[in-house]
């Protein structure tokens, strides 16, 4: 599909009386490989492209998407959309957008090894090496599900205000579901790795080691893990756990469109509201940011899908709510500028407020120092099950690789300690933050139709005091 079609679509909608138009041509070239118990189930190669157009007509928002390159079909789709948008005017929410600086920029993430230059069989070899490594542990693994995905996304965004943003971002993604058996008992864990980088990441990740470490950890917990007694503990969690806590109970509730009720039907709302800027919701050790500009991060971008320049947002500073995640529509409601949080995952999805890379900023302690400061407690290195309610107020984390701490030392593995806690209690209980920062990949779901967005969630190890676990 030609970029000029995006320009054509923009002009066509403008001529029909739209006060604002965005037209985005987006293409994805992807390879997707599924391996189940050592067998490649399928290799998928896709090249998809289409145009998504968003516009305001008498303050009514319309969106139209098409994957055809015929100008006639594009016109027909736009005409149909405008008819529907005009009908909706009588019960519309009048939409305003914040005024933003106009940019005309292009940027690329240049991979050392471009995914498009590497054959699928080379990528399959990496999974096969992982499979070989798992089997070499001789641990019983009745379920080994490995998924490899790479994607090169090209976007061409133009707006009626004169913005023009072009970007090319490669992403590499690896995901597994591992099941281990000891005697009659089984244990399972799934985890994901992802970056905006080239295939060179596969060596850096060292997939065979990732998988053997996982399998050994699951097996150890099954063989030697003991259940904990329900009660109050001091609690140290590793960066993976910190990251998911940050994502679920800070990133999400700070999405301004959620706070304004736009996503209430599915993604839910928030326990916080716009009057809570400046309110303390955590201890002063806690500072959490969202930053799309982190190089090679999974949620990386430099301009959002409204053409607004991306920047770091400080959501919580020393435990106090500082900033929300905004697009142009939510920003203007609060008399602010957008902070560049509008993302859409493909041409056929409208841009909505999303996280990018949401992280607890590191502190000054090593993980060992955090553990040394615990007389009796639990160390949760990583987790398996988790969930949170739709106001992002009460959440649950079930540990996978976990240990009892006694007098500052890890004693033995413990089985699936479970934390169910409210968000204010969680962030207020932290008394120390580590410096062992890690970013972990996720595919975050929001929106109807669902948009699965690549993000990082991250942080360092943290210590919480006096937490009820069971």
């Amino acid at each position, binding site marked *: 599909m030609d970029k000029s079609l995006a320009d054509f679509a923009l002009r066509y909608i403008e001529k029909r009386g739209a006060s604002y138009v965005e037209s985005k041509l987006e293409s994805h070239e992807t390879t997707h490989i599924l391996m189940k118990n050592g067998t490649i189930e399928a290799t998928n190669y896709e090249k998809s492209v289409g145009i998504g157009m968003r516009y305001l007509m008498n303050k009514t928002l319309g969106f139209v*998407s098409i994957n055809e390159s015929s100008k006639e079909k594009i016109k027909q789709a736009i005409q149909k959309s405008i008819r529907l948008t005009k009908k909706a005017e009588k019960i519309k929410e009048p939409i305003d957008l914040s005024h933003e600086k106009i940019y005309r920029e292009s940027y690329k993430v240049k991979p050392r090894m471009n995914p498009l230059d590497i054959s699928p069989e080379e990528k399959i070899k990496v999974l096969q090496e992982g499979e070989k490594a798992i089997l070499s542990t001789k641990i019983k693994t009745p379920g080994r599900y490995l998924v490899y995905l790479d994607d090169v996304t090209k976007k061409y965004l133009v707006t009626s205000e004169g913005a023009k943003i072009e970007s090319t971002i490669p992403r590499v993604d690896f995901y597994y579901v591992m099941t281990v058996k000891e005697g009659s008992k089984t244990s399972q864990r799934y985890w994901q790795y992802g970056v905006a980088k080239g295939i060179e990441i596969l060596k850096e990740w060292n997939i065979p080691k990732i998988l053997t470490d996982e399998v050994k950890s699951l097996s150890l917990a099954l063989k030697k893990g003991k259940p904990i007694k329900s009660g109050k503990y001091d609690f140290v969690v590793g960066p993976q756990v910190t990251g998911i806590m940050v994502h679920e109970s800070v990133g999400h509730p700070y999405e301004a469109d959620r706070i304004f009720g736009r996503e209430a039907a599915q993604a839910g709302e928030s326990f916080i509201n716009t009057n809570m800027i400046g309110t303390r919701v955590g201890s002063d050790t806690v500072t959490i940011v969202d930053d799309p500009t982190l190089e090679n991060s999974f949620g990386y971008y430099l301009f959002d899908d409204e053409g607004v320049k991306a920047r770091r947002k400080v959501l919580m500073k020393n435990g106090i709510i500082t900033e929300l995640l905004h697009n142009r529509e939510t920003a203007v409601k609060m008399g602010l500028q957008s902070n560049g949080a509008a993302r859409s995952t493909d041409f056929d999805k409208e841009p909505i407020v999303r996280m990018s890379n949401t992280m607890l900023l590191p502190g000054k302690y090593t993980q060992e120092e955090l553990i040394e400061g615990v007389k009796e407690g639990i160390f949760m290195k990583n987790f398996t099950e988790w969930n949170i309610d739709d106001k992002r107020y009460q959440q649950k984390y079930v540990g996978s690789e976990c240990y009892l701490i006694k007098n500052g030392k890890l004693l033995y593995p413990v089985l699936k300690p479970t934390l169910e806690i409210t968000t204010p209690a969680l962030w207020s209980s932290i008394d120390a933050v580590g410096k062992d920062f890690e970013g972990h990949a996720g595919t975050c779901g929001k929106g109807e139709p669902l948009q699965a967005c690549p993000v990082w969630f991250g942080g360092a190890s943290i210590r919480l005091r006096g937490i009820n676990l069971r």
Partner: protein
Amino acid sequence: MDINQLKNKFIKAGMDDVVLARQTNNSTQIKFANNRVVKTGIELIDQISIFLVKDKKILTTSIKDFSKQRIEKTIKTCSKLIKNLPRKEDYYGIAKGPFKYKKLKETYDKKVDSIDQIDLVDSAINASLAEGTKRTNGIFETHDVDSHLVTSNHVDIKDKQTSLYFSIRSLIEKDSSGHITISSRTLRNFNPGLAGKKSGEIAKLSLNPQPGKTGKYDLLFSPLAFAPLLGIIGEASSAFSVDAGISFLEGMINKKVSNNNITIIDDPYYPNALRSTSFDAEGVPTRQLKLVDKGVFKTYFHNTSTAKKYKTNTNAHAGLIAPEPWNLKLNPGKLSTEKLIQNIKKGIYITNIWYTRFTSYRTGEFSTIPRDGAFYIENGEIKYPIKNIRVTDTMPNVLRSMQDMGNNLTQIRGWEASLPVLTPSVFLKNIGITTPTH
């Protein structure tokens, strides 16, 4: 673009098996929030999904640009890519046609294209507000899909489908809400106004909820609340899931999983149902299948390859990679929801759930969070609404604990129920409820 010609080109290029599925999808969407329309959407997607096998090596792709140039390039690229892929030794081909197909009932309604969606959204919002709610949010979608499936094994079948989906969540306060979804293939009985009213009624009943308490309770799930769990049972029944180690139904064929009054059928011919189809992804004619028969688990879902591996025959549930259900239906009971409530000594009535996650898909340990109206029941009466609870148990125990069903069989599709199913209200005994400890 002649899909049969494309198929022949792939065969000429040396492919052993070719499955091409073309779908032309015309969709509309109205999104509303805080009682107003916040977005309209139009989508036009035309694509051919391509499944190719050469020497047991499998490659999938799709094509959206039907120009001669793009088609030739795709054939060349696929021929090059497939050569060096590893073989899938347990691939056993695709079904051999041609086949005869039964007619489906109520899957296409030409009036869907001309309905006044805005008026219907407006009527639903007003019906909810008339119940005393303050805010409504939701979505209204319509789809008009033409599909055409051809295979290198003499299958050639076309289909036309329409569908409608309406979701409305009504809120009074942040903690008081009700949610109803309705889905249909045709306009018959499709009533957004009634959905608005019902969601408003739930919201009203759920005012001033109290925090729930940890413990074991009898639970009554509304159709919207049970639908995701029924969908999970369906996904766990795929032979693919069993092989991948992500099914709690592994090793359960012909074993008792539930009580004698529990029967789950997969019915691809259910009138007006969203996943009704007369053919599977290989073109095999579909048929009704008993998944759970009077409490006994009977079969996994199969395609040709998984069936051969399990030494049985395909039961027309391809999914070329992973077999899948069509219309999963939990047979209803005789009692109304009100009567079921009257039979509960101490329990909770749950109208919706959210964020279902697993500790292990293999053991079925999971939890899910009741959302919108959840009500504490004592001695057959709703006492008060509750909040901040979590259903924490295992799927095998959910199956074992199913005691009775309501007479309100309802088609459900929703945010958590991405696999549409047909379910009534379901009463379960002695299920775990947990609450935050801080």
